[in-house]
């Protein structure tokens, strides 16, 4: 496995070119956007009192500047009616502008007004979410969210939490120790999450019940689960669709799961690099996926938690509002190294008698059939991710694709997900470099993938799920 992985590292770029795989990389990593709509500061906070007063006084399109220092607000801060507000530390070193919410109930910053920007601050020790924006448009740049006590169930649930948004960028930020997801985008359309460092949370990055998410250039490590595409029952937006995970470094996500018991993420097996659950149209490419003990990628149906429930003696919750299957998932061009070597307890139980799993576990948890050639396991479970056009290319020359076994159809589909143009959200962002095969601006696939024939699928041993095994 290691040899192959090394091969991949060395030849990745070349292969990308040769096989026409879309490379939606853009040039703006490390980009320094300007200082907000106004450039200057309308209100400057120099101590806790003036900071709290600034949030009370701020008017539409104003900028609150926060001078370096440690601020200890005595209650949640927020912007509810002024639109277009920017809040920024005046020192580009975010660790110099500290907002410590220790002992304060509620969130750190809660935004419901539209078009909000937050930059250059370090938010600490919130009892609920670090910063939450329930609005259409928000931009988070160079912020840090953490808890001094380290990873702990008592920590706030989410670090950065844009929700119900239609345009969001979260970039150059760091989140650590969140008891749910460090960096979450939920019930959003159009979200770019790039160049962040997300570690030691229960879930690192989570895209939940959203449409059009582009997640790239992030380093995600030491979480229980690294990057998640997740569909939940019981929310407004009832699908999770068009999700692109590209060029991320997803490694060592083996932290013990310290989520609140009973919460959805408490079911994420520790050791999961990337997890796709109940999502439709997900492309995972160009990532380095390394040392994730349960699996590099886990593709499952949304009722897999129900499956775990069966094993642990309780029934799955009713899910009538969603299509629980993961469909149209395309995994290719990634670098794999040492995943699945020591799976989480439950997965191990499911995998028995095998003691290790593989880089990719597909369609559920078990049974999977190890693919001798690629060293990659896959398999259909009760979740039925198989019965669609999902596919996994262990390497792009020896394509492996799945059709609908019932109908016998093996149609080849172009499953690439167009990247998002950051300029749509942030006009000042540099344009994306014209990628191979896909136009980010129009989100149209310009060059179809070369025609190929589907290889005969390896035979997956018929297995029925036997509850008594559990």
């Amino acid at each position, binding site marked *: 496995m290691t040899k192959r992985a090394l091969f991949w590292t060395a030849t990745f770029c070349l292969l990308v070119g040769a096989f026409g795989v879309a490379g939606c990389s853009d040039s703006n990593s490390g980009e320094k956007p300007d200082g907000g709509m106004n450039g200057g500061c309308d209100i400057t906070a120099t101590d806790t009192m003036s900071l*709290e007063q600034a949030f*009370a006084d701020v008017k539409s399109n104003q900028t609150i500047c926060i001078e370096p220092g440690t601020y200890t607000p*005595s209650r949640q801060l927020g912007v509810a*009616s002024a639109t277009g507000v920017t809040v920024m530390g005046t020192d580009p070193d975010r660790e110099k502008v500290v907002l410590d919410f220790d002992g304060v109930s*509620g969130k750190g910053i809660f935004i*419901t007004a539209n078009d909000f920007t937050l930059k250059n601050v370090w938010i600490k020790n919130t009892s609920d979410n670090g910063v939450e924006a329930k609005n259409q448009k928000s931009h988070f740049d160079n912020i840090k969210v953490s808890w001094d006590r380290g990873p702990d169930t*008592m920590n706030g649930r*989410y670090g950065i939490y844009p929700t119900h948004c239609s345009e969001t960028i979260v970039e150059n930020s760091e989140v650590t120790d969140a008891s749910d997801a460090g960096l979450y985008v939920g019930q959003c359309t159009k979200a770019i999450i790039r160049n962040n460092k997300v570690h030691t949370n229960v879930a690192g990055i989570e895209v939940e019940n959203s449409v059009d998410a582009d997640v790239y250039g992030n380093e995600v490590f030491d979480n229980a689960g690294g990057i998640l595409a997740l569909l939940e029952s019981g*929310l407004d937006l009832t699908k999770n669709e068009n999700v692109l995970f590209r060029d991320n470094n997803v490694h060592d996500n083996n932290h013990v799961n310290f989520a609140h018991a009973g919460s959805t993420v408490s079911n994420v097996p520790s050791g999961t690099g990337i997890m796709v659950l109940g999502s439709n149209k997900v492309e995972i490419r160009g990532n380095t996926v390394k040392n994730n003990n349960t699996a590099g990628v886990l593709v499952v149906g949304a009722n897999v938690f129900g499956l775990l429930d069966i094993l642990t003696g309780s029934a799955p919750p009713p899910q009538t509002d969603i299509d629980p299957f993961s469909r149209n998932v395309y995994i290719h061009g990634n670098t794999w190294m040492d995943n699945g070597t020591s799976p989480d307890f439950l997965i191990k139980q499911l995998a028995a008698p095998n003691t290790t799993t593989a880089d990719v576990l597909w369609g559920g948890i078990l049974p999977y059939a190890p693919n001798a050639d690629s060293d990659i396991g896959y398999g259909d479970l009760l979740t039925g991710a198989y019965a669609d056009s999902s596919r996994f290319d262990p390497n792009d020359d020896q394509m492996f694709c799945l059709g609908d076994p019932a109908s016998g159809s093996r149609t080849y589909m172009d499953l690439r997900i167009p990247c998002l143009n950051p300029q749509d959200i942030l006009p000042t962002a540099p344009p994306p470099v014209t990628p191979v095969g896909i136009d980010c601006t129009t989100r149209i696939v310009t060059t179809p993938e070369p025609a190929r024939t589907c290889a005969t699928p390896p035979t997956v041993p018929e297995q029925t799920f036997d509850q008594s095994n559990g």
Partner: protein
Amino acid sequence: MRRTVPILALSSAMLLLFGCGASSPSSSVTPAPEGAAYATLAEWHFFKDAPNQVPEDGVVPYDVNARLFTDYALKHRFIYLPPGKKIGYEPDEVWDFPVGTIVIKTFAYPDNVSGPPKTALGERLIETRLFIHESDGWKPYTYQWNDAQTEAKRLDVGDTVPVSWVDKDGQTRSIQYEIPSQQQCFECHGGGTTTRLLGPRTGELNRDWDYGAGPENQIDHIASLGWLDKTPPPADQRITYPEPFNRSDAPGGPAPLAERARAYVQANCAHCHSPNGNVNYKKLYLDWDSTAVAPTAADGLSLGVCKHPTSGGCGGLQYDLVPGDAEESILVCRISAVSPPAPAADMMPPLGRTIEDKEGVALVSEWIDSMAPSMCGGR
């Protein structure tokens, strides 16, 4: 700042001389110009005697059937309607108040811990909150009372106030009362252009109040002032929320348990948990209008019956509401949670409460226990 004082004084004097002063008793109230709420409560002239909460003529007191729990604070509520304006009566929803309306709500505790009370009312006033209907929506403000109870000053950033009182069981209670920041008002009352009143609706207002001549129906009284745009139906034909803790003397006997519990969650939870509430995306609907009063699992998820929580569990439990089993219900776990030791994020409501509402938890638990048991999918 100083320079504006004579101008304001002049304009109120002119109002008295030339305006509706002589004919309408409400003229003593002096609304501030839009967007410029006064620095002190006294400048509004809502009260003849503010420390004792005696309103000016034309400022009408009211109470609600199902009250919001705020750490056992006592509350005084009033409505000021600008002269000549009318309220749109709504049989079901919050009433439609005209621009210029001000709703006033004072939070207080019994002043019974050390020495004789400072006022005849016998209460220590903590804050007086306002909702002002300006041309672009409702604006929230609060005024914090000083310890001497002589003055209340506008406070936009919130504060924490140590408060002690002797409760009805003779226990001395001490809390850190939280005056919300202006931003926090929006968390319950909605933000931006959707800011709204929560209490003044027919179901809440249809009850008696003593305006000085014995108990009188509040809505009938308001109608008699000529404040309503239409004649409401007779009192017994209006929607009425029961008083959650009144087990005996409602007309026609005590209201059924389920209705009292539903009124409690309507008042304490529905501003966030309802189809139009701020947390509607969790699809946990606790408003009076959601589904049947006594739900079963078959009624679906709206009251949280057999609903798996998304982010926020509590105590490792599986479902928001398990009919017949309060102890297994996240709903009860979250309204009884107090931090510490519980994670602060478990507490419901997430603000406006630092201690447990014992009676509320008991009521909701009794209600859930009384439901026909359901296994919630074979649990």
